[in-house]
């Protein structure tokens, strides 16, 4: 599970892509395409390989005017699933 000090990074070969035909955003990964909802895209757009998970959750909470704990819990589930599928990596 992703901890507050962990720094999430999208590894090489995993990238956000605007789907100009269907509209919206997708995450392109080796042999997989994940359609992203607004929340998923917002979380992934914050990942810069520099800031920790705690910092990202705080930024999202501020941007969406939502409780930080709630945002952290939601993002943790989403990012955890990406970790398991190797679409995401952690830098400590």
């Amino acid at each position, binding site marked *: 599970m992703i901890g507050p000090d962990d720094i999430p990074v999208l590894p090489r070969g995993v990238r956000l892509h605007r789907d*100009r035909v269907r509209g919206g955003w997708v995450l392109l990964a080796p*042999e997989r*395409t994940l359609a992203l909802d607004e929340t998923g895209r917002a979380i992934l757009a914050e990942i810069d390989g520099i800031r920790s998970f705690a910092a990202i959750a705080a930024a999202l909470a501020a941007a969406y005017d939502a409780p930080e704990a709630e945002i952290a819990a939601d993002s943790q589930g989403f990012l955890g699933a990406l970790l398991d599928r190797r679409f995401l990596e952690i830098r400590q």
Partner: protein
Amino acid sequence: MSVPPPIAMLAELTHRCPLACPYCSNPLELTRKDSELDTAAWADIFRQAADLGVLQLHLSGGEPATRRDLTDLVAEARAAGLYTNLITSGIGLTEKRLRALDAAGLDHIQLSLQGTDAAMADRIGGYHGGFERKLEVARLIGQIGFPLTLNAVLHRQNLHQLPRAIEMGVEMGARRIEVATVQFHGWALKNRAALMPTRAQARAADAAVAEARARLKGVLVIDYVRADYHSDYPKRCMGGWGTTGLNVTPEGTVLPCHAAQTIPGLVFDSLRDRPLAGIWYEGAAFAAYRGTGWMREPCSGCERKTVDFGGCRCQAMALAGDPAAADPVCIKSPHHAALLARAEAFAATEAPEILWRAAAG
């Protein structure tokens, strides 16, 4: 039904290949080099594909590395906005070429594994020294940093090597391994007796995958296609005929799946005559088995009809002699019992010598 845009395109850049795998998915009638599309034609097709909605491009063959313009093709595909995946045996990829592919923006490499030691791999691939070469290519891939998927086709002769294949995936730093039990059409159909796994082998593979998945969670993703002869229901093929993906042959013919040409009576369009969008949305071969309208009993009244879409059309053709029949793998198919008996009979015989695929001219 309203037709969604395709997500994936498999570009068979060439049928030429230094290997000669006995289960090769290329057709028995291989395209010659002088009929292959040139760089500009492929670049135009990549742009058409991206405009149509394709996101993922699989550069395949034959061996795509036998195309001298492979790096240019990758650059063109990236410029068109496609995610580029190279499906290769590794033969023909030198360090210099891999670095050029890196600079061209290649996103991902899928490396095929014919066996887990030189004796097995070089015999199945019919290419001496191929295994050593592949290990070297895997090392270079890791060094450059390409994301890697290992891809192993399993059959009676090499199924016992599955645990070692998974270990090799970890050692090579692959993120994924795809293990697929051989599908019987094309060249593989000629080798059924040599390649048909036994039921015991299929069970051992199931167990090995389950164990490795639990142990390697978050380390190595294992995609596993089990022997469908030993399942009750067929798999959805190509995500549903004409709904998710398409194939382009080396000469520019567009197919709903790589084996679609084994179905007599289907008419395929060529990109030399018609744009891709027209072929996808209006082409006769795509319309033929799209959705559920073409189905008959037992599929038409079945609650799984939009789950598996009746399974594989090419398998129905090959094994039931009728492309609109239920996939004979299905327990509801009248051909199921005979199919199972035949599969067991093939698996029970002394395995004959394998027959390698021919070379493309």
